[in-house]
């Protein structure tokens, strides 16, 4: 057999998932040894990541959410460049007008004559950046903390987790508010404060994963091969723990957005001239009776984003959860 090594020659393997369901799901008969066909080129198999993507792409609700989410993000990033109005620019001819094509106030103006669409898009940038940065902060802290605790195990693990327990029972929301009051409403502080609140769940999840994986036989097999600890962590532990982490991140992002808008709503979030969806909603509430669009427009953007993220999170969980395999 001439063996020309072409590791990634073919694509697409028929890795049809085993049908699940029933008390004893029917299974295809098990082929024992495979009679070697003439093929010497090795076709690539379907990795779990690709398999998960395929399942996700079959989930219409999740894909629609993903598309809408990308659209919202793109519009928030690029939109303000195409709009004639600036963030704090006042149109002296339009105070609190409703949506109109005149002067390009597509979604109306606020009580100070500032274009609402422009402000919502700028606010979206802030809300989304908080979501991104704070989730990332929580991801980094949570993954490191959880992985160290789980991998080291024993007494260290015990102490680290007891600390997490104590943190859990703190009225965190109120401490964050306290932090905002004390240090002023600084966007970087929001990033850090929210990130510092949200890492606890992530740490628990990653620790649980690490503990479970540590007991798996393929990790033991790697030890038996003499693979170094660092390699075991990078080649075996992390790739296998990544699924639940991804799922959890998609669930953290909406929580972070919500937290930020909650703070902003109370007047404890970002400050003028910056704005965010929470600030705009809060302004909208004040003007609710005379200018309802000021409440509805930012609310719609916030709700749509949260909706999409939740749908996407659910879809990812279904696609990555090994139990549905």
């Amino acid at each position, binding site marked *: 057999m001439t063996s020309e090594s072409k590791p990634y020659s073919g694509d697409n393997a028929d890795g049809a998932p085993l049908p699940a369901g029933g008390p004893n799901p029917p299974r295809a008969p098990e*082929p024992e*040894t495979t009679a070697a066909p003439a093929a010497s080129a090795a076709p690539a*198999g379907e990795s779990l990541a690709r398999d998960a993507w395929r399942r996700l792409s079959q989930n219409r609700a999740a894909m629609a959410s993903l598309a809408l989410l990308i659209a919202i993000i793109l519009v928030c990033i690029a939109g303000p460049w195409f709009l004639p109005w600036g963030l704090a620019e006042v149109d002296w001819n339009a105070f609190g007008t409703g949506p109109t094509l005149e002067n390009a106030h597509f979604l109306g103006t606020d009580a100070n004559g500032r274009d609402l669409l422009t402000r919502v898009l700028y606010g979206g940038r802030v809300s989304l950046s908080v979501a991104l940065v704070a989730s990332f902060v929580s991801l980094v802290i949570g993954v490191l903390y959880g992985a160290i605790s789980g991998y080291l195990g*024993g007494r260290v693990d015990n102490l680290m987790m007891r600390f997490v327990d104590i943190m859990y029972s703190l009225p965190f929301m109120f401490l964050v508010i306290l932090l905002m009051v004390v240090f002023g409403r600084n966007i970087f502080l929001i990033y850090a404060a929210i990130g510092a609140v949200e890492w606890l769940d992530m740490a628990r999840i990653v620790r649980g994963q690490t503990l479970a994986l540590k007991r798996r036989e*393929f990790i033991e097999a790697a030890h*038996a091969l003499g693979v170094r600890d660092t390699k075991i962590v990078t080649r075996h532990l992390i790739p296998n723990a990544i699924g639940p982490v991804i799922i959890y991140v998609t669930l953290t992002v909406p929580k972070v957005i919500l937290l930020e808008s909650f703070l902003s709503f109370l007047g404890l979030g970002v400050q003028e001239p910056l704005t965010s969806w929470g600030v705009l909603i809060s302004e909208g509430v004040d003007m609710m009776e005379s200018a309802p669009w000021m409440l509805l427009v930012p609310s719609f953007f916030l709700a749509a984003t949260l909706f999409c993220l939740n749908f996407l999170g659910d879809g990812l969980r279904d696609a990555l959860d090994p139990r549905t395999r």
Partner: protein
Amino acid sequence: MTQPLLDVDKLSVTFQLPTGPVTAVKDVSFSIAEGETLALVGESGSGKSVTSTAAMRLLPELAKTTGAIRFNGENLLEVSAKRMRRVRGNDISMIFQEPMTSLNPLHRIGRQIGEVLVKHKGLKGDANRRRVLELLNQVGIPEPERRFSSYPYELSGGQRQRVMIAMALACEPKLLIADEPTTALDVTVQAQILDLLKSLQTQYGMAILFITHDLSIVRHFADHVAVMRQGEVVESGRTVEVFDAPQHDYTRMLLDAIPRGRKVPAPADAPVMLSARDVKVRFTTKRRLFGGNDHFEAVRGIDLTVRRGETLGIVGESGSGKSTLGRALLRLLKSEGDIRFEETDLAPLDKSGMRPLRSKLQVVFQDPFGSLSPRMTVGDIISEGLKVHRPEMNRRQREAEVIAALEEVALDPGMRNRYPHEFSGGQRQRIAIARALILKPELLLLDEPTSALDRSVQVRVIDLLRDLQAKYGLTYLFISHDLSVVRALSDDVLVMKEGRVIEQGPVETIFTSPKEPYTQALLKAAFLEEEVAA
């Protein structure tokens, strides 16, 4: 002939899955007379459990059934749901494979058994309690009065299965369906449960439909047998006749799928490969922040010696410490005592000190689904050891080695870029063997390498292990609870219980004239007598 008690007539079951219909059972027919036992035998995926579940009409809604299942002449597939509920638990009852999870964890034992009596017999209050206690007594639960108000978690697996049996017998059913009732239990417990079922069968005069993959149980237990394969019955008849003169190739193959032969002994003057003295392993069961920890001693002082080319079989039930011992010998776990490999004392070596030796000491684990990283290709999995121990090799050389290793275990080298989830259990176990083999090890720890596999697959993996041992003069530490496999593969046997060695010696001595009562009980429970006689 009188009307049979249960008559399954051309039963087919099709699951309407999102990926398309899958037929799990095709035109299956068999019948059971009153008081008799029929065994439905087959490997995983043969449709035997689906068939029995269909008889109780407990299949999920996406299953479509055709044909007929007549119980006393009444077609159960056509009766109303209400009528069917009168049959379940009253005329036909069922026990399952999973004793640990089949009882409601939040209800007391007495209540769970009593519930059937309330439902079908209207038995309440004191009368109910008396009957439940009587049943608990009959199924051999000690202290029934106390157990009456126990929760399932307070009972062992064997006891839970007894409770399930008590529940099933409460209304004196005419037919008991037992779906692999002993598979999850240790062999000695398994034998007790089978004895219990048999004596209760005579007492109550009920018929039993017994679903199992284990042919040795069938031989002892069933009057009739039906062999299933891929959803079809390929052969059926009286057990004695089917076993003595199997007609179908598949039946013959199944019957042959018992590891036969004995190992050619290694020369007596072969050098000692591995020796251990007074090995102890302790686990911390509870950690306290302050003060001492609680410990559990899993291995309590074990001595052993293995010579080059030998196989040492380590036998024991779950919790005996056999796997822990194996891991300790390879220094995958911390232990006390001396362990010497060839000339080297392993005890003082740390991780990096052990590393050069790792290529000589390899391991194959039990679970073919857990022992391969799901995120790596088969080629990467197999070649990982080369990256550690043969760093001078380039990618092309490693690839060539992988191909050779795959061919060695009779797998298509063209599959090397696929991922583990695309392979069957037997194939995965071959991949695990290839991963160990590629390093050209001298000693292989085989920790229940075949227990998770179907019998026919198991035999082929064993043949492979045997061939490899002969070809490369490998030394095996073979850990198993399966005595027939151990017997076919080992030179010496070590019987373990609760972390200690109960009995130790050459394989034939242990199997033909065991001295310790525990070893005798183990052997009896494993139904090896006729093989011994043969």
